[in-house]
């Protein structure tokens, strides 16, 4: 589905069902250099179980037009514009990695538009290794390999993807490679610059779930716990034997955890 957000065509997947804005809505926000596809093992379930799903390609990512935005805060302010365009007053935000910072910041800045938060692979700050940043800014394919080397756990490095026949590392590498020049560098730069995680966390007033993975090298669970402690009444869930790309590596456990969170509270 295509939406016009701030005058730019924005692509969203609705999980294989027509979008009905009157239903409880979940917005899925992807991480650095990625696009909506990273959520494909969660979106269809929710769309076929009474939810309106918006798995979005952020501006300048995937099949969305528009220019890249330069900070987590700008992207956080873009989310309400997306909801306006979809005719949705309030939604659950599920974010991964950079997407989790966007969701966190959006909940802090626009509490009237966010009903629940699910933050997967999150820390209050996301410093990026200088070599990765340098390679990403140069569009050097080394950046894709570093992202996959650090960003995937045992399922990426050895295999046994939950979807038969899918190979996680080449798949992730191709998602990164398919983005336009400068996308990954921009995204990693804004992750690196983001400093206000703890401050924003204290402003979150909606029910929040933080999902961490035991083998996550990019957003280690210890750091996720620190952020969770700053969010009033936040719940946490740790996925064992799993790396940063948890929606793909342990798709069923992610789905189960999200289902429990969404069903715990009224939307």
């Amino acid at each position, binding site marked *: 589905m295509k939406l016009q957000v701030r005058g730019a065509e924005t692509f969203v*997947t609705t*999980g*294989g069902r027509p979008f009905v804005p009157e239903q409880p809505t979940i917005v899925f926000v992807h991480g650095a250099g990625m*696009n*909506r*596809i990273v959520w*494909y*093992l969660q*979106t*269809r*379930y929710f769309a*076929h179980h009474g939810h309106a799903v918006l798995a979005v390609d952020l501006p300048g990512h995937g099949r969305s037009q528009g220019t890249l935005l330069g900070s987590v805060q700008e992207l956080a302010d873009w989310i309400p514009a997306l909801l306006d365009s979809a005719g949705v007053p309030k939604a659950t935000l599920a974010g991964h990695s950079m997407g989790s910072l966007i969701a966190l910041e959006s909940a802090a800045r626009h509490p009237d538009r966010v009903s629940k938060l699910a933050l997967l692979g999150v820390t209050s700050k996301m410093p990026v290794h200088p*070599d990765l940043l340098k390679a990403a800014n140069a569009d050097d394919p*080394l950046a894709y*390999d*570093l992202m*996959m*080397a650090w960003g995937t756990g*045992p399922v990426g*490095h*050895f*295999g*046994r*993807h*939950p*979807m*038969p*026949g*899918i*190979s996680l*590392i*080449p*798949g992730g*590498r*191709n*998602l990164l*490679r*398919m983005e336009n020049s400068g996308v990954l560098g921009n995204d990693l730069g804004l992750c690196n610059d983001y400093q206000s995680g703890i401050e924003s966390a204290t402003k979150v007033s909606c029910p929040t779930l933080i999902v961490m993975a035991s083998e996550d090298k990019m957003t280690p669970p210890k750091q996720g716990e620190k952020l969770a402690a700053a969010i009033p009444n936040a719940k946490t869930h740790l996925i064992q034997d799993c790396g940063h790309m948890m929606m793909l590596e342990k*798709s*069923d456990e992610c*789905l189960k955890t999200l289902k429990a969170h969404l069903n715990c509270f009224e939307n």
Partner: protein
Amino acid sequence: MDPKLYKFDTLSLHGGQRPDAETGARAVPIYQTTSYVFQDSDHAAALFNLEQAGHIYSRISNPTVAVLEERIAALEGGTGAVATASGQSALFATIMTLMGQGNHIVSSASLYGGSVNLFQHTLPRFGIETTFVNPRKPEEFRKAIRPETRLVYGEIIGNPGLEILDVPAVAKVAHEAGLPLLIDATFNTPYLCRALELGADLVSHSVTKWMGGHGVALGGVVVEGGCFDWEANGKFPTLTEPYAGYHGINFFEEFGPHAFSMRMRSEAMRDFGPAMSPQNAFYLLQGLETLPLRMERHISNTKKLLEFLQSSEEVAWVTHPDLPDHPDHQLASRILPKGAGSIIVFGVKAGSSGGGREAGAAFINSVQLASHLANVGDAKTLVIHPASTTHAQMDSKTMKQAGLTEDMIRISVGLEDANDIIDDFKQALRKAAKATGAAK
């Protein structure tokens, strides 16, 4: 900085598998089961509707087969793979996934005879036509493309003529026309060349051959590159339009770089049923574990045998892309730097009482170590006379197009001690020379 990603040799052994969590089994377990128990009715519905990942029925997917698929995808650098009962069913299922009646394929003329039959005699009955072109002329691919063309196809190392396909050049032609390039990489394997890195969009194998490597199990596979934009020109509605057979799913929108493999599994495997058996997947995985070691030996033995054949007085001609006088030697050096495979073709010298065909037959009948059979890529050395066997259904024009001659012997060089192979060939060549009056 070195990204800590497992290398090719390690992936050959470990890709797609970790020790079984329940039993600790180190080898890949053979899941000899047709079906899988659902957790509850919600789980069953979610699996059937592709809302959750998992196995339903072994015609569509199986845990043992999935290890093979994931391992080959990792070795090729693809986003995913679907294994089938044979290389031919992999090719057929790919075509059925991409196109229908009224569509058209542009293919290299230098192909396995079974593929030529499929394109020339079988697919036309279903309304799919193929134009064959010279693999050495990428411009011929361009000229043969029509508005209804949906696929460009070729083998990197032609069978049995050993023409080398300029994959980057043909990929450029295909992409400029908005078409995917499918490469059959059976003869090279990802050890010698990764076609996706050269611009191919899909790679298929007869896993029966070098990948499995022991001549004990049939299998095929298709690997998806994940970079092709199926939506760019509206030519691939099976991937970009709602599919009524799966609740209106749009595969490209929902699965992006996995769109092709998800559609092939969901439709071709479900509806046509060319499933690989888990037992075969196990045999093929055992072979795949030693692919790098075997390919090294295949290539080193090939070099030694080439030296012998070139120096033999009983040999009329010998062809291999690694030889400097091969027309595609430069191209082969560029895209197959580790070696251009372990197939050699040569002609036995004719004599006063027998032509090339008779000389070839006498050689074939005289080998003792090498096996005369219709296969390639076994651990053992194999020989065959294509004109009377694998390519016998071809008329003379098609034979010529495919680079075949009547005296041609095809060798699939095995892993035996190279000196033993050479000794066997020496005695067989001597007997052939005596039989045809070519002996001095």
